[in-house]
């Protein structure tokens, strides 16, 4: 049964009486006034109508839904972490040291020379990267470069972030093998190329084998190579973007470093760059000076991409995770993520056209509708994969179990996939049946937008 809206439990209208003059205040405000016992029940019940990683498998491809270690929450909740961003550097040596160390860790992991922690999410990291590329070209007298090349299989944010930076997006088709088509790339590159944005392994889980050639081609064209960190969980300890020729990269800390996604955020999208680009990093940056850690403005800084310093508690969690796992743990995370994806794939009845893949694979639902497959999987108590994307695979089921599943968990997940694979279209179309809500009418929601309780009767 549905949990009523707070507004259905109570609506209390309060006449605003204030120490301010009347003409500077509103007349009234109407909001629910519900005592704490009922509020607690409200939110507990709502939580029970929500599925998270702790509920079961969450093989959402490209989202890397890892277990969120609970101790990192305790780390982020330490009272000494709760500080105001305008505090003097001298009084925040602990915060700055932790940030400097995280910059250092990320640099080592990505093979990058300098890292900013300011971008508050992966997409913000991409946009920061675009700003950096722009500033770099400007500084080199190449401000005319106004194109960013993006493969068709890239995340939507790549396109949108480039566009937000004012760039024209040049989309290139993937080759038949699911990787960058070098001819298409060659055709797309030119004197106006500012950058190529690339995910590696790409969204099909395939390593871009020609990455060194790609890097050479982009660099020869005068462009920069940008690494989308969404799939970094596949490579930890085995390959580094910096070593492959990438000039700029972002990290998705919730994907790679197990910070919780929180139903949509907050995230953090630190950006790493090579030495040549370090002087452009956002303001302020952190370094160790003679009198301890200090904040400073890089010489040709692009300025700010967040009002303050980004999502600090998320950064604490990422730091604690990296610090706990160390080399051994990080390498093992990738190894098991790749093994789990390969093992799961091995058990599936669905066809997987492309490989060898790493931490994720894209199966094809074949004659079935991939979105229906997903809805039906919900009935088996598991979260479905990402569907219908990338479009290179028909009726795509983009699947990423991550390293947190046990063998028997993967077996159960495979059973769910295979059960659905054997079902008819009618069954799929009428799913789900065992969930809090049955299939929700998306069209009606968009046709008649009701976006607050004020819009309800």
């Amino acid at each position: 049964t549905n949990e009523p809206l707070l507004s259905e439990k109570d609506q209390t209208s309060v006449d605003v009486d204030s120490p301010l003059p009347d003409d500077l205040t509103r007349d009234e405000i109407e909001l629910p006034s519900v005592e704490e016992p009922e509020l607690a029940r409200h939110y507990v019940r709502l939580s029970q109508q929500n599925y998270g990683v702790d509920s079961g498998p969450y093989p959402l491809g490209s989202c890397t839904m890892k277990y969120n270690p609970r101790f990192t929450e305790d780390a982020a909740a330490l009272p000494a972490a709760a500080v105001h961003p305008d505090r003097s550097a001298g009084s925040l040596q602990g915060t700055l040291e932790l940030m400097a160390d995280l910059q250092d860790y990320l640099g080592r992991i990505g093979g990058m020379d300098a890292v900013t922690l300011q971008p508050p999410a992966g997409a913000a990291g991409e946009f920061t990267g675009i700003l950096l590329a722009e500033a770099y070209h400007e500084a080199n007298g190449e401000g005319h470069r106004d194109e960013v090349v993006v493969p068709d299989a890239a995340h939507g944010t790549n396109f949108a972030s480039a566009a937000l930076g004012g760039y024209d997006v040049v989309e290139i088709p993937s080759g038949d093998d699911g990787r960058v088509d070098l001819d298409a790339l060659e055709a797309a590159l030119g004197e106006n190329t500012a950058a190529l944005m690339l995910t590696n392994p790409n969204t099909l889980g395939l390593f871009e084998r020609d990455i060194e050639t790609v890097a050479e081609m982009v660099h020869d064209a005068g462009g920069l190579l940008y690494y989308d960190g969404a799939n970094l969980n596949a490579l930890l300890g085995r390959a580094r973007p910096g070593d492959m020729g990438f000039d700029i990269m972002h990290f998705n800390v919730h994907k790679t470093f197990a910070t919780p996604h929180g139903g949509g955020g907050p995230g953090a999208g630190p950006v790493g760059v090579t030495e040549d680009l370090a002087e452009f990093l956002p303001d302020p940056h952190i370094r160790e000076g003679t009198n301890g850690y200090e904040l400073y403005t890089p010489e040709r800084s692009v300025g700010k991409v967040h009002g303050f310093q980004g999502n600090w508690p998320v950064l604490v969690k990422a730091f604690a995770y990296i610090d706990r796992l160390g080399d051994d743990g990080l390498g093992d995370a990738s190894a098991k993520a790749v093994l789990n994806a390969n093992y799961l794939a091995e058990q599936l009845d669905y066809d997987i056209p492309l490989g060898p893949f790493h931490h994720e694979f894209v199966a094809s639902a074949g004659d079935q509708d991939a979105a229906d497959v997903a809805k039906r999987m919900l009935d088996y108590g598991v979260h479905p994969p990402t569907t219908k994307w990338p479009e290179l695979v028909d009726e795509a089921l983009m699947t990423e179990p991550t390293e947190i599943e046990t063998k028997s968990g993967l077996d159960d997940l495979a059973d769910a996939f295979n059960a659905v694979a054997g079902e008819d279209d009618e069954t799929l179309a009428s799913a789900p049946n065992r969930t809090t809500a049955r299939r929700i009418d998306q069209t009606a929601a968009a046709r008649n937008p009701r976006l607050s309780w004020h819009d309800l009767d």
Partner: protein
Amino acid sequence: MSGSPYAAPSEADTEAMLDAVGVDDVDELFDIPESVRFDGEFGIDAKSEQAALRETKRRLSKNDDLTEFLGRGHYEHYVPSLVDSVSQRSEFITSYTQYQPEVTQGFLQVLFEYQSLLVELTGLGIANCSMYDEATALAEAALLAKRVRAADGHRVLVPEYVRDNYVSVLKNYTGGSDVTVERYGTDDGNVDLAALEATVDDDVVMVYAENPTTLGTVEENLGAVGDLADDHDALFCLGSDPVAMSVLQRPVDVGADVVVGDASVLGMPTSYGTGLGVFATREEFLRQVPGRLVGVSEDEDGTRAFTLTLQTREQHIRKERATSNICTNQAWVALRAGIHAAWLGADGLVDLANELVELPRDLAADLNEIRGIQAPIHDRHHVREFQARTDQPAPAVASDLESEGFAVHAVDNHILQVCITDANAHAADEFVAAVREVTE
């Protein structure tokens, strides 16, 4: 210690799985050219949970334990225990964006209730789930203004009191859109209507003002600002926050077209600037709104159900023509803010806001008693904070106060800014004594 404690397959399972996959070693599964293989070390030692927690604690313990009288965009209010208790529930914090609404009704309803709160506070028709913070929300507002304005235009006007930080973000976000950001004048901590009037023209796409302002002052002529913007078909964007809005003039009543702000004043402790960008606007701009929107629909059984809606605005569908590049947002912070607001209720919100008018008034009066301090410097009403003039150099006063255990802003050579809320009010007397001590 070897391996990740969060990688589930046991040694025996790993063997069995390798067998099933048909390789001897997991390394064979990595299709990485030899030449780009990494054979080095990060040089990070694995640690026990206890040791890792201690390492974080060890670093953070180097922060000085100061009582903060800091604001200017980032504020602290007492956060009820219910917020942590609920928001840390696994089902909420470990979930992803609600792409499968049939199993995420709980979070969708939470976000819908959050949107509803902002609609009530602003009086505007719609609010999204969140932007990153006030600065990025302001930037998105400018981009929205650029998109929705009938005529092409290139200027965005913001008042002098806006933080440089925010203006920098605004400029970065609008840099790709042929928009220039300009400051307009202020007078005694409020918008200078004459200055605004002098500069506003038909090339302006958006006029911005704040209430309360970054200086802590209450704006007294918002209606006129709105009218000026309207006269030139520019959008009027107002910056505020959910607590202040519960008593200050309702944004819609002063003609605001967009409201931005930081709702992390609710639900979050100070967090080195973590935000929760408010974005509310008129219904007519619905299809140009950035970010996520939760709407109401029905399921197969005809039961009311919530879902993300109008996703064709977003990057994962519209790519380079999306209304914004935002994907991951601040949903969990919105959950926390929503719980805090619900816990306060209408009465509690108004009481808190009123307290935030009285506290700075009283503190300013107390500081004004001190020789060498004039407070407040603006002849306005204040919310949470105010500026004070110091005969001595303000940076030196701030530094001396730090030695006494207090943090304040030194915003100019002889100007301090002081913020007081329910969270630090208990230390007001000691603070006044410390100011006296270091200035007299």
